[in-house]
């Protein structure tokens, strides 16, 4: 049996299962579960004895296989009479295997396309114009990915004290949103009432964050709030000229 060398090429439990199905020339719609389970488990044993890292997913599939096997062994339950055959316990697994197989093939055909920097190459040198004109017009579009932004933030935070490494909580971000919105509107309109700020979309979350934002802005002494008597409209003014 020359399969030792192939061990590390399995991409996961589904991949191993597909390999066994292919190796035994089995019809995927009619998997002999007992045989496949036995082979699957002996592969896991082998991987373990070779000290290969066994991802938890391999064990999950092992238990799924054993579960299906036991279901197939059970006599059909009463009432689930002969006329109506219960669903094949293998159906879900087959579905999953077919789906995975399809994507595996898709991956292969992607890999076979003429790939940039492997099969085709674009112009290697930067053009003269690129080097001379930095071309950073003010209103130019900006091409950055949100992933780069988080990565940048993480990089900076990594160099700081541990206490800086706080989880970014989304509540603070919602608050920042409201603060931005309030300051934007104040600079446009000069003054604004609490209910103007809520607008038509006055859900609970929005009311709370708008209120918290105003408190925060007052604490920063960026806005002043006035109320025209009890139950009157709360009116906000910028505390200083922007």
């Amino acid at each position: 049996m020359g399969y030792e060398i192939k061990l590390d090429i399995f991409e996961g439990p589904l991949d191993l299962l597909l390999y066994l199905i292919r190796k035994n020339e089995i019809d995927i719609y009619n998997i002999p579960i007992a045989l496949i389970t036995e082979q699957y488990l002996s592969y896991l044993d082998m991987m373990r004895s070779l000290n290969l890292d066994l991802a938890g997913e391999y064990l999950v599939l092992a238990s799924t296989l054993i579960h299906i096997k036991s279901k197939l062994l059970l006599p059909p339950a009463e009432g689930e009479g002969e006329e109506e055959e219960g669903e094949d316990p293998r159906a879900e697994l087959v579905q999953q295997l077919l789906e995975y197989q399809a994507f595996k093939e898709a991956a292969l055909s992607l890999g076979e396309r003429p790939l940039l920097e492997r099969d085709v190459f674009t112009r290697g040198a930067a053009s003269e114009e690129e080097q001379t004109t930095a071309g950073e017009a003010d209103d130019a579009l900006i091409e950055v990915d949100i992933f780069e932004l988080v990565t940048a933030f993480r990089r900076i935070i990594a160099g700081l004290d541990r206490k800086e490494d706080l989880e970014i909580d989304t509540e603070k971000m919602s608050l920042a949103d409201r603060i931005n919105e309030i300051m934007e509107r104040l600079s446009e309109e000069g003054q604004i009432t609490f209910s103007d700020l809520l607008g038509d979309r006055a859900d609970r979350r929005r009311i709370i964050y708008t209120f918290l934002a105003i408190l925060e802005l007052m604490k920063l002494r960026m806005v002043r709030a006035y109320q025209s008597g009890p139950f009157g409209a709360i009116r906000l003014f910028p505390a200083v000229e922007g």
Partner: protein
Amino acid sequence: MEEKIAIIEALLFASESPLTVERIVETLSDTEKKEIVSLLEGLIREYDTRGGGICLREVAGGFQFRTRTDLSPWVRKLKAGRPALLSTPALETLAVVAYRQPLVKAEIDRIRGVDASGALKGLLEKKLVRIVGRKDVPGKPIIYGTTRKFLEVFNLKDLSELPTLRELKDLQEQQE
């Protein structure tokens, strides 16, 4: 040669990413889109007929000069670098994202039967996959999709050019 073709050729050559017809229209300003498309088609034919080392191709929604595929051994030899290969997990993850986008990581994990975190991060770093947004369900999981660079690297005009697989179609029919 007509001056307009020369200009278009210079623009294509100078652009660092596939050049869209729209950008050419903006830059030339006095030429209709239809005319530019037909000039581009003419250029593609001209380079193909000539059989030189360069050809013009439509990729990622634009046009770009590229080296002829069959000459890649020579170019690789010159560049003396190993081709930037994607690992099998990366390629599988990319295939799932490409065909099922927009989707969340849990869906990728489910289809591949293993955790896709590592592969996904590599693809994000290579800019083949990007964060599209968040799903409006509890936990607001991040939604992923492919990038324009994905189209460039895999020589695709657009996503509809991805080959449809029979198995995939069968599955979708079964699911419905």
